[in-house]
């Protein structure tokens, strides 16, 4: 290889090194997060660690009438829609199957994310220990609440970080923007109406709540499935009911 060839190779290698340097400079935060967890404050760490899990759980619950594993359901487009009010008899109003819908959903979220919460605290501990902190975590309770506009999970775990100074975090709040609270309140009202009178006019709800879409789909064997959609956020809640069913041909 001639000197010219060597020079060319050095130039190419040089350009490649510069290019890699530029790329590292440009994408440093992302690259850093790939190598090790972002060194955020603990609250942000827990929010990042848990919000996807909560979001996924909420989506499942919203599409399945509020249960992760519905026991008694109507299959609709491969989704298992839990019966929140049901009677197997014809012409009769339904029996309420899930009167405490909001509490039930809250406990379903808690149950579902509980293992991930432990993993997240372990990751958090590891992350801070890697940064030279002494980390102490006192396990606390978990409370999830559906609130207007968002879902808040509060973890009363006590985190103590020591590296010279000591920082103490008494609790962690993981907030998810989701208006399931409103949709669940409307679902409750629909159940109440179905159990008392057997039929609901979706227009009543849509007139009252602008931006809400209520779809009511009657099924052949007398069941009705409701799909509630918040048109602004595209949040959905769907469930099934069977009340005052009219058998075909009678």
């Amino acid at each position, binding site marked *: 290889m001639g000197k010219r060839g060597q020079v060319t190779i050095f130039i190419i290698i040089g350009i490649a090194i510069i290019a890699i340097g530029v790329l590292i400079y440009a994408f440093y935060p992302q690259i850093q997060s790939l190598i090790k967890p972002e060194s955020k404050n603990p609250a942000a760490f827990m929010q990042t660690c848990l919000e996807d899990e909560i979001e996924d759980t909420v989506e499942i619950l919203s599409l399945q009438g509020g249960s992760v594993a*519905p*026991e*008694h*359901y109507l299959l609709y487009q491969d989704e298992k829609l839990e*019966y929140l009010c*049901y*009677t*197997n*008899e014809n012409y009769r*109003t*339904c*029996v*309420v*199957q*899930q*009167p*405490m819908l*909001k*509490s*039930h959903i809250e*406990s379903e979220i808690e149950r579902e994310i509980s293992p991930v919460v432990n993993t997240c605290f372990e990751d958090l501990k590891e992350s801070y220990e890697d940064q030279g902190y002494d980390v102490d975590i006192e396990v606390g309770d978990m409370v999830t609440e559906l*609130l*207007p506009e968002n879902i808040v999970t509060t973890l009363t775990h006590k985190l103590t970080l020591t590296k010279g100074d000591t920082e103490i975090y008494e609790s962690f709040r993981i907030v998810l923007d989701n208006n399931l609270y409103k949709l669940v309140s409307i679902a*409750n009202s629909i*159940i*109440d109406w179905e*159990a*008392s009178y057997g039929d609901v006019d*979706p*227009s009543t709800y*849509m007139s009252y709540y*602008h*931006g809400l*879409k209520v*779809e*009511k*789909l*009657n*099924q*052949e*064997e*007398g069941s009705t499935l409701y799909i509630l959609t918040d*048109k602004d956020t595209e949040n959905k809640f769907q469930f099934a009911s069977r009340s005052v069913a*009219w*058998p*075909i*041909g*009678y």
Partner: protein
Amino acid sequence: MNKRILTFILIFFLILLIGFVHAQNSYCCEKTTYGAYCQQEVDVSKCSTAIKNPNTNETYQKAPTSCESTSYCKLGTCVNVDEGLCLENTPQITCEKEDGNWYDKDANELPQCQLGCCLLGDQAAFVTQNRCKSLSSLYGLETIFRNDIVNEFVCIASATSDAKGACVTEKDYERTCNLLTKRECQALEESSTDVIIEFHEGYLCSADELATNCGPRGGTTCVESEDEVYFLDTCGNLANVYDYSRMSEDDDYWTYIQEPTCSDGFGSAESRECGNCEYYFGSTCKAYRTTNAPAPRYGDYTCIDLDCEDRDFRAKYGRDPQHGEVWCSYTTNKIVRDPLENYLPGAEHYKVKCWEGEIIPEACDPGRATICNETNIIGDFKYASCVLNRWQQCIDQETQEDCLDAESRDCVWIEGYSVLKNDDEYNTEKKLENLNGAEIRASCVPKYPPAALFWEEIGVLQCGIANAGWVLHYKYGLRYTAEGLEERIEDSDDTPFKKCEKAKSENCHVLPGAPDYDKFKVAMPKVCPSLGDCGKSINYMGSGEKGIFSDYVEYGDIES
């Protein structure tokens, strides 16, 4: 014994008997094998008794009686104390499995379920006191619960918004402003130190005379739970409703809180200059970029049109549907000329609504148990609802007057053939009384044919009502001549039925029970499909064959 007492005793025993029969025929399952609670099951194996109720640690119960008479499935009221919600018609088990409080009473008998008026800022809700506390806490408001208001309409009407105005804050010689209620402004004053706070009721923050750092023309915005487009001042406070004509040259419009004056009378949909949207006229505030609406002359928000586009509706009524309009549709997927086409096998009724720019179909009950009924309200604004198809009693009516009693049933009167039969040897047609009092062959049949599960036993029975079959007992083929010799009648024309009728001889006559054949042939194609998805027919998809009435003669006893 007094007749009344006798009747009472009879009714009492009848009720007992019904209860007994019901109890004998079905079980009340506390939980079924398919996961439902408190269901009446004929098949006892569907009652779940293998697993335990986690609340009681006992196996789920079952009893050969109605659920109303059991202790474990009696319906009561479930109270969610935290939320202040009361749900009636709830069995104890479903309430307590999620830590609700169950009471064997109606909600109106429980003090914690008494409704009152909860005032939440400028809104009101007719709820329980606990619910009011919960809502007030969620929205960070003081709990104002009025149990003297016992009517929802009065409650909602009592919601008054506190007077708003400019809450001017002066600190270090800088004057800024927030548009608040007097109460909010006072609260701000109480929580602030070293600040001078003034409240100017009815003023906007952009008012020149307040000399704040907030000026006019800070853009436009939508406000939650309101429909109009609002101006903003330069501090981001709400101002009056967007009105381009008053934006630059009307200082008053940026000084005082005012009612909007611009309007086209129909919600100002897609107006480039007016933000006075009205939901019930079919418009509401939205960012114009998220829609196909034209850009407003100022700002990013406009009154979008909530009306819909629908090809079928346009073909039928020559215009597109408006927001809130509801009309009938059928699975025939086409504009039908003969209304009976909406009752073809498989055809279902729908009410379709136009809501916020979307077409939302809602099926009536399956099997045409309810049917769509469309009317005009306010001009040609359509409103449709699914109404009960009251067809069940039609067949049994014996007079035209009862048949056409629209208060009681939905039936039509078809003359020529009677599906009702006399209980006699020949199963002869029962004659019905027409409006003139004459006894004629006629049928009272459903006006809106219900569907029939014609492939199942129930459907066969339903359609079978229209079956008309007679074995014609006639003597045909030979007759005796005057000399006592046998003579053969030629098998020349028509059906045996006709030939026999024609012959009208001693040896060949149609026996009672056979219809008036010509009238029967006219009536049957109407009677048969009226009873449901019966007979030969094109289905709702347009496939199948059109029913052609044909007789089928089976030879009966031919006496020679």
